């Protein structure tokens, strides 16, 4: 590993931390346009962060140390995930710390801490949110694992840098029909994991339908800022995992020069712009599902991923 690799490792983390709110702002803007509303500016999320960081924390009297530590832990899990996912270059010292399966575990750590913190203050909404979040969590994990299985069958690795290298060296791999099934399933998992429509509505004000939002009702000030930021980072990370698995073009390989790296950043931004627009369209054309219809949605994702696996075994081997 060279010094530039370490520099890029830090650079990529900073890039992810900086771009994640922008990506969330872009999705929000697209949604507003599609719904014929006047859109908030692109940098609205940064303003939100600034406002929240300046405010005092109003901490519930019952809150324990776990409640105060959770925003930092959740933020740290998402930053670590951003450091591991090769969004710009595969030449990252930390990329081998966790493969795709371990990455699922890293996200699960964040989720469990979030749910525990939601139960800490002891309000009715908090524990309701925790229960729902964990339910969505155990429904998405099998589907996500089957997606990774299909990807593993096609690429021969669950290490994300290796996946990128395999695809960029043999582009025809992407023509495997099994990957199409896996990609659709992955998008469905992404929607559910990131509290987007149709499973959860990130902009809702109706407490009884909330999942993610009801868990963070008691948070304020810098704690809330970190949690919001972590949620945006999670969406960003999921998008980047999707890019590495299903459209890795543009990602700089091991030993690429600065020109290619600049190109890789450009490609990442272009992909994010496209993905944000698609996400906004998906969210605008679907209605929120009742909570107990969400399992059907995720079972569908699971079955699609299994279908991808079977297609691979029957047709592609």
């Amino acid at each position, binding site marked *: 590993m060279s010094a530039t690799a370490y520099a890029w490792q830090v650079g990529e983390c900073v890039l992810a931390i900086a771009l994640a709110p922008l990506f969330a702002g872009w999705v929000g803007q697209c949604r507003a346009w599609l719904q014929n509303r006047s859109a908030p500016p692109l940098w609205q999320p940064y303003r939100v962060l600034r406002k929240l960081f300046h405010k005092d924390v109003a901490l519930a009297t019952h809150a324990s140390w776990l409640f105060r530590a959770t925003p930092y832990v959740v933020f740290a899990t998402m930053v670590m995930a951003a450091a591991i996912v090769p969004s710009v270059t595969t030449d990252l010292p930390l990329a081998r710390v*966790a493969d795709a399966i371990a990455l699922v575990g890293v996200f*699960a750590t964040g*989720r469990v801490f979030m749910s525990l913190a939601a139960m800490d203050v*002891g309000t009715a909404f908090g524990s309701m949110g925790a229960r729902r979040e964990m339910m969505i*969590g155990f429904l998405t994990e099998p589907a996500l*694992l089957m997606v990774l299985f299909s990807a593993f069958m096609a690429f021969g690795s669950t*290490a994300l840098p290796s996946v990128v290298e395999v695809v960029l060296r043999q582009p025809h791999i992407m023509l495997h029909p099994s990957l199409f099934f896996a990609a659709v399933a992955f998008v469905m998992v992404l929607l559910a994991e990131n509290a987007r429509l149709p499973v959860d509505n990130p902009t809702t004000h109706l407490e009884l339908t909330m999942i993610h939002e009801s868990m963070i009702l*008691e948070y304020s000030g810098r704690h809330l800022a970190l949690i919001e930021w972590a949620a945006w980072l999670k969406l960003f990370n999921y998008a980047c995992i999707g890019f590495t698995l299903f459209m890795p073009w543009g990602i700089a390989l091991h030993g690429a020069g600065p020109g290619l790296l600049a190109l890789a950043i450009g490609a990442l931004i272009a992909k994010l712009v496209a993905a944000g627009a698609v996400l906004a369209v998906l969210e605008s054309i679907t209605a929120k599902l009742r909570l107990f219809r969400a399992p059907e949605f995720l079972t569908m994702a*699971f079955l699609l991923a299994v279908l991808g696996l079977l297609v691979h075994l029957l047709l592609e081997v």
Partner: protein
Amino acid sequence: MNGIASTTALTALLGLIAAWLVLGALGLARPNSIRWVARTLFPVGALIALGVAGAGAVALTENFAAQTAVLPLGLPSLPFHVRLDALSGFFLLLLGSAGAGISIFAAGYFRAGEGTAPGMMGLQYHLFLASMALVILADDAYMFMVAWETMALSSYFLVVTQHRLPEIRRAGFLYLLMAHVGALGILLCFGVLQGGSWLMTFDAMRGATLAPVWASAAFVLALFGFGAKAGLVPLHVWLPEAHPAAPSPVSAMMSGLMLKVAVYGMLRVSWDLLHAGPWWWGLLTLGVGLGTAMYGAIFAAVQTDMKRLLAYSSIENIGLIFAGVGLALLCRSFDMRLLAALALAAALIHSFNHALFKSLLFLATGSVLHATGERSLGKLGGLIRYMPWVAALALIGSLAIAGLPPLNGFVSEWLLLQAFLQTPHIPHAFLNMIVPLGAAIVSLTAALAGYVMVKFYGVIFLGQPRERALEHAHPAGWLERAGLGWLALGCVLVGVFPQVALDVAGRITGQLVGATVQRGPSPWWMTPLASNQASYSGLWLWAGLVLVVAATFVLVRRFYHGRVHRAPSWDCGYRWQTPRMQDSAEGFGQPIRHLFGPVFRMQRELPLPSDPQPQYRVQIEEHFWHALYLPLSRIVLRSAERVTILQGGRLATYLLYSFLTLILLLVWVL
């Protein structure tokens, strides 16, 4: 040199086991003194356990040659044989390291006036430990069964410590019954394994050649016998009854250690004594294991008693371990040795992990029980403020059992999933499609375990106290904390240095499978398959998380501020919030009840809207009781009644029976 080292290891082990027995006997000197039995003898027992762990670790060093000895005990022509090899060394390491934590905790835990006299309990406790170690060391079927029965009986007496309560006697009876049904299976299994030679040593069994039918019969009997002890569905029914009945350190020993002894027995028979069998052995074990894992996780999610919840969670983890064993057997039958080694390593590491975190959680429930007098989740809450140490250590255990990185539970689940990833390469047209779906069940189970642990931890330690009395809960003593801390340390260490665990498991897979999974070329992360495939580094993940948390904390303080003011909880502006509005244990399990409805046998009493004093009650039972066990027990009772006709109570009739039997035998012989 090695020969000497291993002889000393075996001799030392036997000495340590004898010391446990002496310790138990010493307790009888002053049977009613807590100070003597608990505070003095139990810490010594913990030191002995550490010694056992160390001696077990010696057997796991490189180039260790298996060492055997014949003891001058047993029947005249049937002496006891003992043997120390990598497999037994690993399980002794497990027994010793988790047992040390439990003994230290128990030293602070036992109080006077709780059922059996402390001295008696100390005897049973150390007899239990010693018999488990002897099962692991046994090298002939005779000694194995003697130690196995001692283990079952000593643990039975520990379960019924509070024998004055009828439900505890009932739970103990069920446990004893299932233990003996299982022991019968094991006995028959050994009977088949000797293969007509009538030699009961394991050496003879290894050399015996069995017809395929008899090998399969032995395998199925072993799966039945050891499965009954380990708690495989549908033989699991005793677990959720016996674990809550026993005192917490005993529950921890049974769940953390004794179930692992059953896993050891299964491994010994299926990998060491039996040779490679047909693929359906593996598929059967895998199927039963995965079913058990799912079943345990689903039932754990709806429990309202904290120890019952943990008992079902043990069933789940045993299921995962057997799934790993089954996958390894399946791969062995196709001669995929490396993959078999990977699956077996996952099962072994999970056994070790489960011994650590399940003991930790059972002990934590013991502290909670002593501090509050409550076992029902619906009456706990908010204990993180009153018992900060127990809460922090239980958090580590809960996160570890939920399979979250960078703790130890994740390592074994990750290895198991990696093994499943390779199963599409099985050279069998249907298995290569069916078996990979097992990975989905493993991940569903792991995620459900997360659900269960959020419920367990959240309802007990977080939120507001659901009862007024909880505000007087007192923190645990330092001995209890030390025991919990030791186990939590183990959870963290295995999670941070998974490579070491993989190396250790490699010694056993080298012995049993003839292949070892390499940790990979890098010292920092393990790559069990190939250097460009899957990789995981607990240490870097841990370091990264700590670094980012610290950096974020410092930066936020540096650029903004750290101001906090306390206020009542907001709860969307609702002012009349009470602790009873938090999710109860039933409430938290409601989504699971809804999603997996047909799995449960559920009775609900819903109040009417007009009811002035509404009462909500839900009772969840298992279908197995009503569909399998109760009909079975009715059949047994009915046939017993039929047989009572023979039992007239008159001596003359009985003499007539003997006479007739003799005549019949004579006729048959002539």
